[in-house]
């Protein structure tokens, strides 16, 4: 008896909340197209079921799902910047769901954006692939892009993209070896997987190509995010005599601080890190995904939704070595880097990756 009341109370309270929420939106004109949810059920009369007829060809709708913050000066920002750059020439609407490190939530977001009829859904994280392979077949009219990865699962509506980060890494390694006095060059890595591993392996190969006697201690901290550990790793490198450092992933901001403090040269990757320490950052390998994204957008607009793997590298301008204008690199060292770039492009130099 009493339990019935309790249930009733819960339902009542819930209904009140529901009514309060539902009541507000009557007056509201349907703003923010992205806000439209899918296929309104019969019970919900307020939401206009507009998704089917929406998305005419003029505005191209892109959604990005990414694991870290959109201004991380690293992985996620490189993609957000690229899509923003492409939107300069294409009429585009961009939706971003960042910080989606929970893989299940990312899958739900990918599905929801596809359901809302976005033209291109970018799953910017290699850990999202397992979900994407299940989701993509359910939305044959939506194009998906997945990276960094080298597999489209044989699906006609999935593009894959990756960065040949070993190439830029190799060039940075050559620069590092040429500038190092001590011959000890430290690496602050996150976890030995994917993009970070490619970069680090390329970097080490570049160092050893320039100076076979160099010592390249590589430390993977085991975390993409532990800034304090990255910072102490840089200190440890400094104590063993390293005078040049590099590192990958968003936690390197700590290590760059240590480099600046000790006058140790730094090489960055994924985004231009010069602003973090203008006095010691020599150069950064910067990803310009727009090279890939503009091609994908053009193909999707032309009706091809997937089935291709794109790579950004030094040859196609997707990877650019950006020197820090605040640090002057001797001309002969730049010449060595240029020679490495040319060698990689014409295939005469192997990055060992």
């Amino acid at each position: 008896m009493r339990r019935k009341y309790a249930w009733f109370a819960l339902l009542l309270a819930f209904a009140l909340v529901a009514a309060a929420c539902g009541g507000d939106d009557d007056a509201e004109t349907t703003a923010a197209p992205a806000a439209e949810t899918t296929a309104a059920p019969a019970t919900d009369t307020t939401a206009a079921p507009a998704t089917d007829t929406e998305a005419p060809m003029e505005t191209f709708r892109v959604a990005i799902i990414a694991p870290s913050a959109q201004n991380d000066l690293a992985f996620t920002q490189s993609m957000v910047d690229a899509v923003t750059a492409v939107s300069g020439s294409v009429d585009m609407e961009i939706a971003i769901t960042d910080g989606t490190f929970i893989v299940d939530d990312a899958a739900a977001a990918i599905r929801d954006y596809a359901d809302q009829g976005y033209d291109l859904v970018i799953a910017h994280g290699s850990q999202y692939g397992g979900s994407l392979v299940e989701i993509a077949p359910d939305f044959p009219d939506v194009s998906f892009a997945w990276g960094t990865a080298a597999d489209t699962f044989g699906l006609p509506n999935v593009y894959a993209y990756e960065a040949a980060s070993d190439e830029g890494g190799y060039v940075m390694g050559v620069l590092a070896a040429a500038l190092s006095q001590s011959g000890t060059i430290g690496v602050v890595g996150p976890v030995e997987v994917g993009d970070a591993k490619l970069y680090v392996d390329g970097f080490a190969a570049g160092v050893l190509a320039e100076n076979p006697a160099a010592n390249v201690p590589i430390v993977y901290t085991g975390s993409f995010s532990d800034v304090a550990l990255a910072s102490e790793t840089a200190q440890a490198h400094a104590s063993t005599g390293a005078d040049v450092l590099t590192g990958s992933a968003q936690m390197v901001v700590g290590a760059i601080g240590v480099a600046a403090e000790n006058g140790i040269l730094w090489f960055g990757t994924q985004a231009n890190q010069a602003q973090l320490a203008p006095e010691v950052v020599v150069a950064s390998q910067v990803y310009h995904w727009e090279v890939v994204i503009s091609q994908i957008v053009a193909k999707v607009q032309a009706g091809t939704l997937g089935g291709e793997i794109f790579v950004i590298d030094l040859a196609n301008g997707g990877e650019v070595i950006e020197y820090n204008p605040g640090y002057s690199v001797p001309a002969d060292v730049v010449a060595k880097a240029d020679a490495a770039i040319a060698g990689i492009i014409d295939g005469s130099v192997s990055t060992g990756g």
Partner: protein
Amino acid sequence: MSDFFTEAVLIATVAAGIRLAVPLLFASLGEMFGQRSGVLNLGVDGVMLLGAFGGYYAVLKSGNVWLGLLVGVGVGIVFGLITAVMSVTLKAEQGISGIGIYLFGLGFSDLLFQKWVGTPLPIKAFPKIEIPVLADIPILGEMLFRHSAVVYIAFAAVPVSMFIINRTNFGMKIRAVGENPEAADSLGVSVTKIRYATLIIGGTLAGVAGAALAIDLKIFQQNLTNAAGFIAIALVYFGAWRPLGVMGGALLYGFVNSIVLQLKTLGIIPRSWSDIAAMAPAIVTILALVIVAQRFKPPTALTKPFERGR
């Protein structure tokens, strides 16, 4: 292995261990006060993150590291007060309410960062202070007496805490409230007031811990503390609720990390062991908890809200 015992590496390892211990030391000393009065605060990490952002932002805008530390104090006081309202006045379940503060701090610090700062810009660090005479001692001087100012503050907080807990009237009340709140209450000690005071001290030190970390690293980023606040709570148990024990625990934790790191740098621990090696501190802590639990008992009233007349 011989690479490890060179002068430069040894100095760096010890100095790194001390630096890594500092945020933990602040936070655990604060948590210790709360626990001595009978309140377990699991929200330390959230307050640290909020203090870290507050401190970072203040230094970014003002260029004054001491103002940054002060903002950390302010943030800590506010959240210490909120913790006290929840745990003491509203008598919320202590094991759970802290998780709420943690999740909030984790999200809100990042949210403010994205709204007000966006791109991680470096800030000024604490000035390095070389203690006269002592800093000139060979090796030892470099290990111990050439640190940034905040390191000395952290270690100075240890004897201060000892004095407060053991020698002052206030400390005696804290212990009484933690061991036997009914008796303390009957003697006219306000259990509520004492617990509010200790939780505000705890919040303050957690805020300072976060600010010190951010200013030491000269940066803020989402989840900067990487759950250091939870380690700090464990260290209070590890240190058997005594300031010296807490300091020992923080130093041990710092040293284990810095030694593992240095061994990885020298290639003595192979890369494939990284994930396994990362388990070591937690397992060591669990074992330490077992040993400590055999010899010391926690404050009797820990985690129990006080209800007069029960």
